[in-house]
């Protein structure tokens, strides 16, 4: 067991440091300022993934498995194995969609769209609000 603060609090602290102290110090160097902002942004992605990633991934895996006619209980997988399973199902779904020529209006379309929306909840929750 680890003591407080937990991982997401540590990431928040690093994010704060980057935006409040590092960015003003490097603002005249465009490339480094840009990479600092990207790093701040990616720490946010990791933080959201640690908080909600597992729940969303379990839903995505259940949806992909159902589309492929597979029976899977996502709760049985450890974190790393669950991620690998998702990659595997995503490749299989992609192949199946190419074969079936499924497109707009299909059940696959709605399912994949929901999975992509889950993706954005982690990778860019501000997407669509700009």
């Amino acid at each position, binding site marked *: 067991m680890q003591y407080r603060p937990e991982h997401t609090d540590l990431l928040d602290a690093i994010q704060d440091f980057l935006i409040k102290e590092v960015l003003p110090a490097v603002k005249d160097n465009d490339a480094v300022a840009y990479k600092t902002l990207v*790093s701040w942004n990616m720490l946010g992605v990791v933080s959201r993934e640690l908080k909600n990633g597992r729940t969303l991934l379990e839903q995505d895996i259940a949806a992909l498995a159902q589309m492929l006619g597979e029976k899977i209980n996502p709760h049985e997988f450890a974190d790393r194995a669950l991620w690998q399973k998702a990659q595997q199902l995503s490749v299989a779904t992609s192949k199946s969609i190419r074969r079936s*020529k499924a497109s707009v209006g299909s059940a696959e379309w709605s399912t994949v*769209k929901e999975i992509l*929306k889950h993706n*954005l909840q982690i990778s860019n929750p501000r*997407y669509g609000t*700009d």
Partner: protein
Amino acid sequence: MVASDKLKAYLSERAGAPVEINEFRQLSGGACQDNYLVAMSMQSHGGSTALTNHETCVLRTDKGGALLGSLSRAQEYQVIERAVAAGVLTPSVKWLSEDTSIVGHPFYLMQKIEGTANPREILKSKKIDFKKLAADIATNLAKIHSVEYGSQVLPFLDRKLRPGTTDVALTAVADCRRLLDELPGGYPGIELCLNWAEANAPVTDTIVLAHSDFRSGNFMVDVAGGGNLTGILDWEFAHWSDRHEDIGYIRMRDWRFGKVKNEVGGFSSAEDFYPHYEAASQTKIDPVKVRYWEVMGNIRWAIGAAQQGERHLSGKDKGIEFASIGRRVAEMELEAMRLIEGSALN
């Protein structure tokens, strides 16, 4: 890379006089290229007096392994020469060398032009007349598209695509699938959109030279000096295509850099852009084809983003900027799906 004696000797040979390199430093580059500023001075003899001429250029070379199906420097050089001949505002090029012993990769010199291509700096500027900028960019796009396909024109680009058919669109779909097959991951959203693109492939009336990365970020604008367009940059993806490919591409949501209501590049409405293109090209823009190619642009950029993430993972080009782009694929997938559904921008 440093300015070596070999480079100095090559420049002297091409200049026909001894060249001194006074400044040599790296500039921001593209995904596959490195750009260096080269300030040179060379002696010339005018009668009995020796004159010193100063010239500042950009040396453009490969960054390592070329990716994403981009052109070689020698091919890019010829495309730029053709574009310049067609009257396109773009930095002129000279002194191509394919000798890899000089700077490690083939390279050429490019005219140095004033301004910035940084889209955020351009889009937030209060000094720019954006209607004029839109007109200038539209007119230059028409000039690029004035280069029509012919088997003798830029023959290395020839893929035997037939005008009056769906060859161009279906080849683009096939290219995307081939690139997807090279990636370890699966992208169901892209596959669904490609199925739509295959079923809805439009006919290309005239096959023209497409810039193929025609977007904010590749337009050099002299923000400090009055806001004029000073050049179209980055020809590495140029190919024979449908004119609507470039028009769809400049409209892509991601190239609006947050100014999503300005549908052309984040700086213009279609109403302020299309008429200038149509007048200069004498060709009517077909909105159905524009939407098709905007979908294809999003698909292509989604695949490009996935490739950049893999590039980081492979160790070829490690960096947070590449790694982070790999996490952006879903944005382009959803945008392509929105366009196909014909939904409003949310």
